Structures are given as C-alpha cells and as structure tokens.
C-alpha cells in the first residue's frame, strides 16, 4: 500500500522533471508561442497579438535586416522587448529622434544591432538607448496566429526609408 503510493509519487516527480526539461529545451532552442503587448510595433503587431517565435536563427547567426526579434531589454534584464532589426554591425543608420530637427547618422558597432519599433512615434528603441548587443536577442518572430483575421506571415516594415541604402 505504502510502496504503491511512494512509487506513484516518484513517478509523478520524475515525469514532471522530464517534461519540464523538455519544455525548457524547446523554449530555449526551438521556439514557442509569445503574446506581444504594447503599441510600439503597430501596425505590424497590434497590442496582445499572439505570434510564433523561433530561436534557431539566433543560434546560427541568421538574423537579418528587417526581421522582427524579441530581445532582453538592455535596462531591465527581466523584461523583453519586441522590435525590428534596422541595422546590423557596420551599417549606417539614421539616429535622429523625433524631437531632433537635424538628421544625424551613426554606425552600428561590431557585435551590436540597431532596433526600432514600426510605430516610430510611440516606441522606445535604439534611438533612445543606442545599439544593443547581439547577445541580448532571444528569438525571431515570423508568424502570427491570433487574431485569425491576420493569420499568416508578418508584413514587411512600413518604414522602408529607415534602412540604410548600402
């Protein structure tokens, strides 16, 4: 009787650990479902849309210009940000914030990326805190599953003029 209960408990704990570890590996290395909140990526991603994120291209250094990525916030490691990659290392980018009158250019340092939200008027991004290290990128968002009316791959950036010409 007691042995039966003990065996059942052990089995339950074992299965919990096993599936927890499998879940960790999946979320860490393959990808998962993420809910985005905040207005900074409108109109591509609305508030509380549900999207697929994959982490493989980060591990194989396959992040490209125009991809939407999830990254750890540089000022708060516990929160994540969701932005579009505007420039990779060595790219020339426009750095003027909305309040600036003059245009200014800058180059993204080695090992960094330049992130901006699609909603340029309402986004805290690299124009505010500078380029962020590649190591902070968690994954790439490429597919929207909710709302169903917008089901499918994500659209290209509405701010094409922000990309560097060369």
């Amino acid at each position, binding site marked *: 009787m007691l042995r039966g209960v003990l065996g059942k408990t052990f089995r339950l704990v074992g299965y919990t*650990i*096993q599936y*927890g*570890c*499998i879940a*960790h*590996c999946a979320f*860490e290395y393959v990808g998962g479902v993420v809910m985005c909140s905040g207005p900074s990526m409108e109109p591509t991603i609305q508030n509380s849309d549900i999207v697929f994120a994959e982490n493989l291209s980060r591990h194989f250094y396959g992040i490209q210009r125009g991809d939407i990525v999830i*990254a*750890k*916030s*540089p*000022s*708060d*490691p*516990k929160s994540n940000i969701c932005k579009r990659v505007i420039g990779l*290392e*060595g*790219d*020339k980018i426009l*750095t003027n914030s909305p309040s600036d009158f003059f245009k*200014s*250019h*800058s*180059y*993204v*340092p*080695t*090992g*960094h990326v330049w992130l901006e939200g699609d909603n340029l008027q309402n986004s805290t991004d*690299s*124009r505010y*805190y*500078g*380029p*962020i*290290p*590649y*190591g*902070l990128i968690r994954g790439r968002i490429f597919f929207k599953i909710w709302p169903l009316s917008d089901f499918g791959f994500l659209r290209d950036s509405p701010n094409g003029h922000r990309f560097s010409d060369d």
Partner: protein
Amino acid sequence: MAQSQGWVRRYAKAFCKGFFVAVPVAVTFLDRVACVARVEGASMQPSLNPGGSQSSDVVLLNHWKVRNFEVQRGDIVSLVQQEASVEGPRATFQASKSRKQLSGFLRQAGVRTELEPAPNRKADSAVESRSPARALNKLRSPKNPEQKIIKRVIALEGDIVKTIGHKNRYVKVPRGHIWVEGDHHGHSFDSNSFGPVSLGLLHAHATHILWPPERWQKLESALPPERLPVQREEE
C-alpha cells in the same frame, strides 16, 4: 530468430526512452543550474590562470545563483561577449565630433569584417590598435561555441566608478548595467574598453576552481580596495 529480433527492438526502445529523458535533463541542468568551463588568457591573473599561458584553470559556473540577475560587487562572473565596442552601449547615438570619427573607424572595421573570414579577430585587433597591451580572457565551454568572457564585477547600477583608460574619467553605471574589469589591469579587455555591460548578458557566477586539483578552491568575492565605487547608489 524472431526472439532475437524482439530483443533488438526492446533494446532500441529502451535506448530511445533513456535518450529522450537524459538529453533534455542534462541540457536543462547545464543551462539552469551549473556547468564547467576552461579559462583562457591572462586577464584575470592572479585569481585565475596564475601560471601564465601554460596553465588554464577549469571553473565551476553557477547559473542558479544569478537566475534573478543578482550580483554583488567583487563577484567573478561570466558574460556573453558583446564584441569590441569602443564605446559604451549608449554612446554612439549621441553624436559628438570625436565619436563620429570613432564610428567612422568602427565602420571601417565593420566593412573589413565583411570581407575577412575571421570577423572577431579583426574587430579585436581594431581595438588593440588603440591599446596594444589588451588581451582577451576567453572562456570556451564545450556546449556553446559562443564566446564568453570572465570578469570581476566592480560596480552595480547607479554607482559612479573611476575608470582606468576609458574615454571618460568617471562613469555612472546606467540602470540594468554593471561595470566589469579583469584583475590584471592593462592586460584585460573589459568595461574600460567597452563601457558598462547590460545585465541581460550575464551568464553565470564563477564560484570554484575545479582543476588543476592543487588549485581547488572557492573563489572569494573580493573587491580591490582601490576599486571601490566613488559613489554608491543611494539606498
């Protein structure tokens, strides 16, 4: 015949089952709890690798301790390398003249890296041309080919530190960042070169030296007295 086939099938089944249990559990353990790594380079002398280039210590990296990104001044931590950024994380976009020159210099480095097969080395040498005596202290973990660096935490967010050879004499560490330095001043590629580091790049806390056996010891969390922050963040 049929019996031996059944035996093979049973064996394969058991093997697969064990495989699917063991691999995720091991990976999760190495990611979340602890792993070991070999330290290369001289930038943490005398705490690590005191024998110069011949010796290389193996350290225990505790991930569990930093799961909430909590570190103390004086801790030895490993970080994901943010490559040779001559400027701090928030520096480039504030365009001053000298910085513009620097970013032009960086762009050249960047352009060259596109042509050269070894981008990291090129970028490092770009920095080394500015300060020739710098050496990277690398950690190579067998699981993850991504470079890690191992350094001592000197200051936490909000502290004001007196820098050694940084472009600003005093730096206030921004929110969510730490200031890290190697123990071997002048031979270390650390925050004095690339500025404050975001806590999101924190990888693990180095707690023990495991190998060689005669060097087995706990790594003390000690801040050199001359490197105390000029002003601590008000509690």
